[in-house]
């Protein structure tokens, strides 16, 4: 938390607020015999802050006041990073019966939680058109990993273990090629055409050439990271299926499709959901994530487990009995216990509150808001793919005839206008990319204010570019030294303190 002259702290480190012996709690006298800690587990080089409760509370409240959050204003990183988290989610997650439930509780004592997980599995399946869902992956990348392991095992079981290539478009999230590599398969990148879709000629060449028998599948994000719906998606899917491969959908951008387009009905075999994006569970600093996977009949036996099933059907004596079931040929566990249950609970509350038509409205408003911003901002900035977008769109972050101003400068200046910056420099295939996602919750007045700020910044870039190059001017912290931040990683206060003591 350094100020711009890099010596003055806006708030001291918590270590510097303490004094020896100062404590926040009084522990009662020990009423059982003490047993000594094994010597090999003892260390004395770990500095711990010694502070009272009030100091801790004030310290973190001050830090939170230096922050900017979606509860303060428009946050165009969108569902990718943090869409609005409804407070009813938090109320639900704090219900004592859920909050205090131990993960090792016998199934008979956890029927409420199991019912909730079972219903969430069914709802997620229905929203995306898949027959079965596992909630166990801990986050999106783990959902991807589970999906590709399932595809791999499917081919091995059919005697086609030589299928080792996963096709990935060049606009993909970086996690996609990483997932493929982690799963022991190899990536083949496909270019985009001038409309931002997958280049069909390249896809046909890959699927119909000498590599045909090595195609394990394809990972694709719909809408793409450019915010564009793949207008040839049905042909993409049938081309890969004809080659014997399976289709994986990266569900990161489901905010544009939810309950309107069902990936399972398009022909996808597996996808992951980011409950922490689309379904509004906290993310970015709050977390943890949750990356449920949905599959069709082909991959059902391979789902990561355990999943929640009905152990005894409902009868005249009462409700069904729910329990954990390991799918027949499961790729195994992705995580201890049952996934991030607190996130299942919040996602459940989100879907329950909106209901069927409300979820569809979320998608419609998200897409409407993005297209409204795109249409307005096209008057001032270059939109490289000027067609209807999904829940987000990409601008080129430069102003004509002002070469010194880059996307980063525009983003920094936005902070002075009271807005969080959008995603910078992704996707990589657009120079100076600014990826803007307003989400469904913003009203027209706030969208208009954002447009006005972007227009004012373009005017400043022409008239007085220095204002942008030195921005932000009003944020608690001025322009950061990004190179130093990347090269001098200081992830814990203790080593910093040790270094200072030298």
């Amino acid at each position, binding site marked *: 938390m350094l100020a711009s002259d890099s010596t003055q702290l806006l708030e001291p480190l918590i270590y510097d607020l303490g004094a020896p012996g100062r404590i926040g709690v009084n522990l009662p006298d020990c009423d059982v015999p003490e047993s000594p800690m094994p010597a090999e587990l003892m260390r004395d080089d770990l500095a711990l802050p010694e502070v009272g409760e009030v100091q801790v509370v004030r310290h973190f409240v001050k830090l939170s006041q230096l922050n900017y959050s979606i509860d303060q204003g428009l946050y165009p990183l969108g569902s990718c990073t943090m869409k609005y988290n409804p407070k009813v989610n938090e109320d639900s997650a704090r219900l004592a019966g859920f909050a205090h439930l131990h993960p090792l509780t016998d199934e008979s004592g956890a029927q409420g939680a199991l019912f909730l997980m079972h219903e969430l599995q069914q709802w997620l399946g229905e929203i995306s058109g898949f027959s079965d869902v596992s909630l166990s992956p801990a986050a999106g990348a783990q959902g991807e990993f589970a999906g590709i392991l399932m595809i791999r095992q499917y081919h091995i079981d059919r005697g086609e273990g030589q299928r080792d290539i996963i096709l990935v478009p060049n606009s993909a999230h970086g996690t996609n090629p990483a997932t493929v590599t982690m799963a022991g398969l190899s990536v083949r990148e496909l270019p985009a055409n001038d409309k931002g879709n997958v280049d069909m000629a390249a896809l046909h060449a890959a699927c119909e050439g000498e590599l045909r028998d090595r195609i394990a599948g394809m990972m694709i994000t719909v809408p793409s990271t450019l915010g564009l719906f793949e207008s040839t998606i049905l042909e993409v899917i049938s081309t890969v299926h004809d080659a014997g491969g399976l289709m994986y959908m990266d569900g990161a951008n489901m905010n544009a499709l939810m309950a309107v387009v069902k990936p399972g009905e398009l022909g996808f075999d597996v996808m992951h959901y980011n409950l922490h994006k689309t379904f509004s569970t906290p993310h970015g600093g709050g977390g943890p994530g949750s990356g449920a996977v949905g599959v069709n009949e082909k991959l059902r036996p391979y789902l990561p487990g355990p999943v929640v099933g009905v152990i005894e059907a409902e009868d005249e004596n009462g409700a069904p009995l729910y329990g954990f079931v390991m799918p027949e040929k499961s790729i195994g566990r992705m995580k201890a216990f049952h996934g991030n249950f607190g996130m299942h609970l919040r996602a459940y509350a989100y879907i329950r509150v909106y209901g069927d038509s409300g979820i569809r409205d979320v998608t419609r408003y998200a897409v409407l808001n993005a297209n409204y911003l795109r249409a307005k901002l096209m008057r001032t900035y270059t939109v490289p793919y000027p067609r209807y977008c999904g829940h987000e769109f990409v601008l080129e972050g430069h102003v004509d005839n002002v*070469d010194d101003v880059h996307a980063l400068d525009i983003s920094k200046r936005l902070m002075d206008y009271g807005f969080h910056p959008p995603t910078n420099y992704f996707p990589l295939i657009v*120079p100076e990319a600014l990826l803007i996602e307003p989400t469904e919750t913003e009203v027209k007045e706030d969208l208009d204010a954002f447009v006005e700020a972007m227009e004012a910044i373009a005017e400043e870039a022409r008239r007085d570019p220095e204002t942008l190059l030195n921005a932000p001017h009003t944020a608690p912290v001025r322009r950061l030294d990004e190179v130093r931040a*990347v090269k001098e990683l200081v992830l814990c206060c203790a080593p910093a303190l040790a270094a200072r003591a030298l």
Partner: protein
Amino acid sequence: MGEWKTPAELKYAESDEWFAVAGDIVTIGITDYAQDQLNDIVYVEFKDPGDAVEAGGSFGEVESVKAASELYSVVAGEIIEVNSALEDEPEVVNADPYGAGWMVKIRASSLVEIDGLMDSAAYDAYCDSR
């Protein structure tokens, strides 16, 4: 546009590496345009001397505050030297991409792919068109 340096004695790839040929030794780095687009470079990693590189294959990667990119060689051969000074001071690539910012030297098994590269005028036009 077109304010990037493109020395006339070098050859250029569409993936923005430059190639200098002396006998069968090919020295490779990234262009002034590439370092300008990447912005501040914070990390480089190369294969080791003695490693083989395929034609069109990767010899390492470069990471900036904006992005991480693979580095490609059009020629196949054996890496005989890497510029290990860049590991501690990758910013030299920004400051002097054609000099102290050179990356690897490869003993090429064939130079035929060099003929398919762009000369400086063609590369200038290519950068202006982007």
